[in-house]
């Protein structure tokens, strides 16, 4: 999962950090990115308004039971070890202590966490890229655009498709059932890989947030809500992005 672009949007929708890691230019100037950031910010809010009725009903009903991972505090994201950390880090123990700023140990966090992003946008997949959004408790948004694309048109779904087209002349119940079972067989793989991707992205972006809390929030010359200019932050983020590749 290679990160192409990283954006940080403050709580009022302003773009405060933007880096392109892919070499190619996509012809967007900084003004375009500002518009993009505020659009994302507003779309984020709209998305939470659109929660279907069935989900709302379900949530009400299952608020008593605690069987699923949608507990009251929000969704639990499992910790995925060493996302974006240097793989051959264990060899050099000399400067390990200071390596992660004010974070102890060899990873920024080691336990699963509750997603603060409850109803808003989390993932956007298109033909060319996938966009992940991590929202913090204070309403900041960390956005990563990754070059990975869904592989959903792979063989199992195709077989399902050809199945339907073969019988497509009359749309009978039998066809649709065979169609949906074919989909069923492939969906396990699909859903797992997609959820894993979201989890990796959430872990990764949370670490960017950790770096932000060190190198931006503890910089006396940074003023809140303003564009981030810290070189150290730049360097650390870049390192983490390149580790992920």
């Amino acid at each position, binding site marked *: 999962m290679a990160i192409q672009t990283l954006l940080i949007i403050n709580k009022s929708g302003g773009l405060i950090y933007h880096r392109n890691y892919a070499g190619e230019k996509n012809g967007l100037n900084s003004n375009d990115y500002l518009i993009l950031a505020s659009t994302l910010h507003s779309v984020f809010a709209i998305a939470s308004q659109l929660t279907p009725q069935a989900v709302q009903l379900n949530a009400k009903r299952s608020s008593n039971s605690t069987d699923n991972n949608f507990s009251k505090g929000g969704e639990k994201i499992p910790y995925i070890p060493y996302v974006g950390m240097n793989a051959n880090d264990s060899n050099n123990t000399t*400067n390990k202590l*200071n390596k992660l*700023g*004010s974070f102890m140990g060899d990873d920024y966090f080691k336990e699963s966490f509750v997603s603060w992003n409850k109803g808003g946008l989390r993932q956007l997949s298109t033909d060319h890229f996938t966009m992940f959004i991590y929202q913090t408790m204070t309403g900041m948004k960390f956005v990563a655009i990754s070059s990975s694309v869904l592989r959903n048109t792979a063989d199992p779904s195709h077989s399902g498709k050809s199945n339907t087209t073969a019988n497509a002349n009359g749309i009978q119940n039998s066809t649709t059932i065979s169609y949906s079972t074919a989909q069923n067989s492939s969906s396990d793989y699909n859903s797992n890989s997609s959820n894993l991707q979201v989890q990796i992205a959430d872990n990764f972006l949370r670490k960017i947030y950790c770096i932000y809390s*060190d*190198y931006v929030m*503890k*910089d*006396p*010359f940074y003023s809140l809500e303003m564009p981030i*200019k*810290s*070189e*150290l*932050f730049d*360097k650390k983020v870049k390192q983490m992005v390149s580790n992920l590749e």
Partner: protein
Amino acid sequence: MTDKLILTGMPEEQNVHSTTGYEYIIGPKQSLPNEANAPYIPSKIYSESILYKKQQVSLMSMAFLYQELISQIYKNSKTSTEFETKLSNHGSNIGFKLLDLLNLRASVPSSARSSTFLPSNASLTGGNTGETGGASTNTNTSTILTGYIDKSYESNESLSNMISQLRRRDLKIIDILQFIHGSVWSYLFGAPSNDLVKSSERENEYMIVDNEPVLTQFISGNFSCNYFMCGLIKGFLSQAGFECTVSPHPDVDEIYPNRVVYLIKFEKQVLEREALKFGA
């Protein structure tokens, strides 16, 4: 720890939230706990032994404090020299005091320092006394407090008993620099500094190298923030009679993007004195 203490004579509503700290929904508390009714607990600082013990401060809170110090000074300074002087003065105040404290601590023989003394005495194993004092009810707080003060008196006595001979003041430049490089740095950051170098070009210049400065590690692009440590070194040295000026210099490479060299320039008279006393 103040759970019980707050409960006395507090309005109902505040009782409900008093245990949970900052409430996101309610915002900052309107009033402080009723301090008039609370029994007087002397701060542990006054009765604590000054013997060395391992104490750690959260780097995060330290960084925030330092950040606030910097931005406060930055706001109130007109020129960068003024900023550097002010920051340096803050540091030298600490340096003055460290000279006495660390010399006294260094006088305690190392065998006694790691002896049974530390773990056996409850009042020394940081934080414990505060908790027991607070968790007890109002009625018997006083008894616990007196016992606690008695104990710490004992510990003070035992500290002076432990010192058979006070450490002698460092008189040579190289000795006191070694002391800064080792003891002062260990006291402040838990490890000696990365290097202590004598300038090959000038007689009166020495350098202390810090690969990863703890205080300024999160600050990007403004090197003057290291003047705090410069002031500390300067204060320490000048209090000991070694007048000097200290300035920070960047020495950046691939592995250590923040490396700082503290350049210490001693005054002429310091060198002359040394030549007279220890001259070859």
